[in-house]
């Protein structure tokens, strides 16, 4: 299995985490993006993610491999949901195992940042006032979207 995947069904975390267990690993860091009930001050009902799957998987895979090279972690993987997601649903999961916690945290943070800025996935938010919007941020800042 590859280190990055697009999932059309709810993400099952346990087997993803289990893949990263390693006798040389002393540290594991994970990040989860959940669907929040608000964004930029607007109450959100739920959302839909859409991906250009072939390119998303290729670019996601590149990100994870670049991260492992850059920070020297032992292993990492990332899965991103597509489809309709209710509030509270898991949208993206990143897990990293490393000998030490510096590499685990840095790799995990770098992967989610790069996934948010480079992988062709789009969020369509439904607001409680009945309107909805595709989110096309000009640039992704750490605090302006999702998590």
């Amino acid at each position, binding site marked *: 299995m590859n280190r990055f995947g697009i999932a059309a069904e709810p993400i099952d975390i346990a087997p993803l985490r289990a893949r990263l267990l390693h006798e040389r690993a002393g540290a594991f860091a994970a990040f989860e993006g959940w669907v929040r009930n608000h964004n930029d001050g607007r109450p959100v009902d739920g959302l839909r993610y859409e991906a250009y799957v072939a390119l998303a998987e290729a670019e996601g895979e590149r990100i994870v491999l670049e991260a492992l090279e850059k920070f020297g972690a032992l292993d990492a993987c990332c899965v991103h949901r597509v489809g309709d997601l209710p509030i509270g649903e898991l949208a993206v999961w990143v897990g990293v195992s490393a000998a030490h916690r510096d590499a685990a945290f840095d790799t995990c943070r770098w992967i989610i940042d790069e996934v*948010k800025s480079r992988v*062709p996935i*789009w*969020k369509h938010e439904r607001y409680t006032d009945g309107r909805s919007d595709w989110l096309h*941020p000009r640039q992704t800042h750490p605090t302006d979207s999702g998590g």
Partner: protein
Amino acid sequence: MARVTLLYFASLRDAAGAASETLESAAPDLAALYEETRLRHGFVLPLAHLRVAVDGAFAAWTDAVRDGTEVAFIPPVSGG
């Protein structure tokens, strides 16, 4: 003339009213191809906000439009 399939995602798909279309274009490069497509469908996103991919790999706007390829215009992404 090159025969190409265009892929639309997110707001571009909504504006185009289709996820893809196949057409003949005389555009010399991918930038010109986007501009003619933008005018035809009334896309509001300027080229500077997009990326472009050919046959599933990121490409440069200055690349020629090659016959038989699949071209995707990538609006700003919002995963995560």
